[in-house]
């Protein structure tokens, strides 16, 4: 019989991106014995790729900025579908979490008076993103990694969790395997924090790292946790479109934040034609005004390139669809004619580098060709806004895998600070819960045996399919049928395709040894990917309107009937999924006034108030 090694922890954290590391630190500080599992080496998680910055109303560049403005901007960007309590916790706490990183050794870019500098980003009313050139994610993850190492973190690198283990409806651990050796590991834990990141790799064109196969959503849902808002997927407006092998790699929004402009093949700055009703009056209406804003004139309004991502992505799609795109199916993003070469190299060094190396193009001289790429999922595991507890006892979720904070659309920069605010809350709450569980560790041997047999099945199935081919089919079909523009017939067709892929995911074949075998890893990833894809498609079918990251060709406008509704994806006793529409929690009157403020001066913080 297959053997396995057992590890016991008070708190098991699955994922070592920003959310996982921050959760681990918080749990260790509470005195818990903590284990961290990651599919990659430490410090390589997807968070490392984040570029533009982390949003927090520090008020260092514009003293008028404060949590209320951040609160309003976040809800407005999210189409008011956000969980207001999470937004409140988040916007109030983010500045402290950023300063904490500095105390742990992060070195942010500075203002002239020596404080943390902040840059402009889409949807933020003021320059709000603490940043380090365009490698903010690296700074974040390295700082948390160093701090966690200092506290004696116990990391299981290159280890994949395949299933969560349950006992009487509680989560009590997880089963995984070492990628390096193929050996199975059983983690017995009193509480588990999911921090597994996003799902971008269910799409063909994505900015996401290979790990973002949506494992956490499926793992949680399989043990009965609710998922919410899964239809809201963010397509970042600017991914690379050329050469083909780099398609989807991100071009940071920092380019637009630093003054970059979008043009179509006719040379027209088309974003002026695409300002939606709800943002009317807040953005520059002429190139001349946008230019003054860039020069620092505070009476000028911001350029429309800094509208929210959903708006910009759809505007780009429209230009391309109507025949005004660039030769490789994108549009032009131009910073070269806007800023001196030295400035660009200093503020956007890795973009300069990336285009030079991969596209053979000098962005200080020429415009970039860009187009939408799957980037982020707003939806996720439903959590309590204070503790990040799911509806399954013992299970917590934080970071991109958790839903609720961003509503229908996330503002750029609102993820990195989400990770540290809610990673910390999840770690603290999980440690507190774990401390209350005093009995012996309980895991069910039969459950473990069954999962191990499942995981090894592709080795004993010589007639099965090639997992890489199956992966390609899944990603291409999701791209086509559940991508940036959706309609009922395609979504329904995709459900059938997924039913078929789901069956075939259990009939793959792999060969070779179990040590570092990518074929095997892919075979197991697909099983979780088809599950989360189904949740996305079901939610997208149910939302018969367009809002935020969800655009329906057959229902192109927002519909008031859906304005206050979350879609909850719930697992039925027979294992199938269903969608339930639930009204959002009511926002208290004083917060509603903040959220709906028309004039930012209403939100100025009164001294002593």
């Amino acid at each position: 019989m297959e053997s396995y090694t057992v590890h016991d922890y008070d708190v098991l954290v699955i994922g070592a991106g920003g959310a996982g590391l921050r959760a681990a630190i918080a749990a260790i500080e509470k005195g818990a014995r903590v284990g961290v599992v990651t599919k990659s080496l430490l410090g390589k998680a997807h968070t490392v790729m984040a570029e533009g910055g982390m949003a927090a109303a520090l008020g260092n560049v514009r003293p008028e900025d404060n949590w209320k403005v951040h609160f309003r901007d976040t809800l407005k960007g999210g189409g008011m579908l956000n969980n207001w309590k999470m937004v409140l916790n988040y916007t109030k706490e983010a500045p402290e979490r950023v300063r904490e990183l500095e105390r742990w050794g992060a070195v942010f870019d500075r203002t002239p008076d020596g404080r943390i500098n902040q840059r402009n980003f889409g949807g933020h009313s003021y320059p709000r993103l603490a940043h380090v050139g365009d490698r903010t994610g690296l700074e974040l993850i390295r700082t948390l990694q160093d701090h966690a190492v200092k506290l004696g973190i116990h990391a299981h690198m290159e280890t994949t969790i395949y299933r969560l283990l349950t006992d009487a409806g509680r989560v009590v651990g997880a089963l995984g395997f070492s990628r390096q050796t193929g050996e199975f590991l059983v983690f017995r834990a009193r509480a588990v924090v999911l921090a597994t990141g996003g799902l971008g790799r269910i799409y063909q064109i994505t900015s996401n790292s290979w790990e973002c196969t949506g494992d956490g959503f499926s793992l949680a849902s399989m043990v009965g946790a609710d998922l919410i808002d899964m239809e809201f997927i963010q397509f970042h407006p600017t991914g690379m479109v050329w050469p083909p092998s780099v398609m989807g790699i991100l071009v940071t929004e920092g380019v637009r934040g630093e003054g970059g402009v979008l043009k179509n093949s006719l040379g027209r700055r088309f974003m002026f034609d695409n300002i939606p009703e709800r943002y009317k009056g807040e953005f520059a209406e002429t190139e001349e005004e946008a230019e003054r804003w860039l020069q620092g004139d505070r009476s000028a309004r911001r350029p429309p390139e800094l509208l929210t991502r959903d708006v910009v992505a759809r505007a780009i799609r429209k230009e391309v669809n109507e025949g005004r795109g660039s030769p490789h199916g994108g549009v032009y993003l131009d910073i070269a004619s806007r800023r001196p070469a030295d400035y660009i190299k200093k503020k956007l060094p890795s973009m300069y580098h990336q285009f030079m190396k991969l596209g053979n193009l000098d962005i200080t001289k020429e415009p970039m060709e860009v187009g939408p790429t799957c980037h982020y999922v707003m939806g996720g595991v439903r959590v309590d806004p204070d503790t990040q507890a799911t509806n399954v006892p013992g299970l917590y979720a934080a970071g991109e895998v958790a839903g609720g904070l961003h509503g229908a659309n996330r503002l750029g920069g609102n993820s990195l600070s989400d990770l540290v605010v809610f990673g910390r809350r999840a770690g603290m709450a999980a440690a507190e819960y774990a401390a209350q569980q005093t009995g012996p560790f309980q895991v069910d041997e039969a459950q473990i045996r069954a999962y191990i047999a499942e995981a090894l099945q592709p080795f004993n199935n010589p007639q099965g399919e090639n997992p890489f081919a199956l992966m390609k089919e899944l990603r291409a079909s999701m791209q086509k049928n559940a991508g940036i523009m959706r309609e009922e017939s395609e979504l329904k067709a995709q459900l059938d395709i997924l039913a078929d892929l789901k069956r075939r995911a259990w009939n793959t074949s792999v060969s070779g040894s179990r040590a570092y075998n990518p074929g095997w890893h892919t075979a197991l990833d697909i099983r979780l990917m088809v599950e989360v894809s189904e949740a996305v498609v079901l939610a997208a079918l149910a939302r018969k309107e367009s809002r935020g990251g969800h655009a329906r060709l057959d229902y192109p406008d927002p519909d008031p009937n859906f304005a206050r509704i979350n879609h909850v994806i719930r697992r039925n006793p027979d294992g199938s999924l269903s969608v339930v529409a639930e009204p959002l929690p009511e926002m208290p009157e004083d917060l509603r006034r903040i959220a709906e403020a028309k004039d930012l001066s209403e939100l100025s913080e009164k001294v002593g108030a």
Partner: protein
Amino acid sequence: MPNVTFRVFRGDRQGGELKDYSVEVQEGMVVLDVIHKIQAEQAPDLACRWNCKAGKCGSCGAEVNGKPTLMCMTRLDTLDTSKPVTVRPLKTFPVIRDLVTDVKWNYEVNKKIKPFTPAPNTDWIMYQEDVDRVQEFRKCIECFLCQNVCHVLREHNEKTGFIGPRFLVRTASLEMHPLDVENRLDMLKNEGGIGYCNITKCCTEVCPEHIRITDNAIIPLKERVVDEYYDPVLSFFRRLFSSKKRPEAAQSAADD
């Protein structure tokens, strides 16, 4: 587009050999794309590491035609594809499988470096010109290419007495942090083995982040070590006037 022969190392801790794969390539491909294509179509168990495919995570280091590089940042049109292209794992670390090596040693070394220790009661005011220097070092993506080429590690396998360029860079990022008050010079001289480095600059040449490892990190650290240990007078004055070791630091190192 033409077919190109890729000669890829296949094997494990016990040993292995180069195997030829003929791959149809397309415009704009990088070496990592080719490895993925081989995986998907010819050898599903071919092991390699990668995360970002954009030069940001440092996972995909390998030796392409003998040159240590990030596979995701190496375009085929920069290579002579009329001849077979060889792809081998980093030589300095033990092979796990195929292109994946065991880099655990680096994580162990890292733990020996005393963590960031800020001056107590600091106001956290730092000017851009004060942090430019450490920001350069903090660009490191831990690809370990510098560790791989440094002859102290590569030829002499000096993994007990030398921490290697990556961790000299990390130490420099802490030592030159304007608000750090810890002293790591003793570590550098002893376990760190900074004396082993004879400034050949091979590390600087391979660094994909263009960190001037030798000039900006190692040489200044060497000078500090020399001052500290071999020139007590100079060392005394440096300490007296250095902005880094602020006087209040000595008073209360514990309260923060």
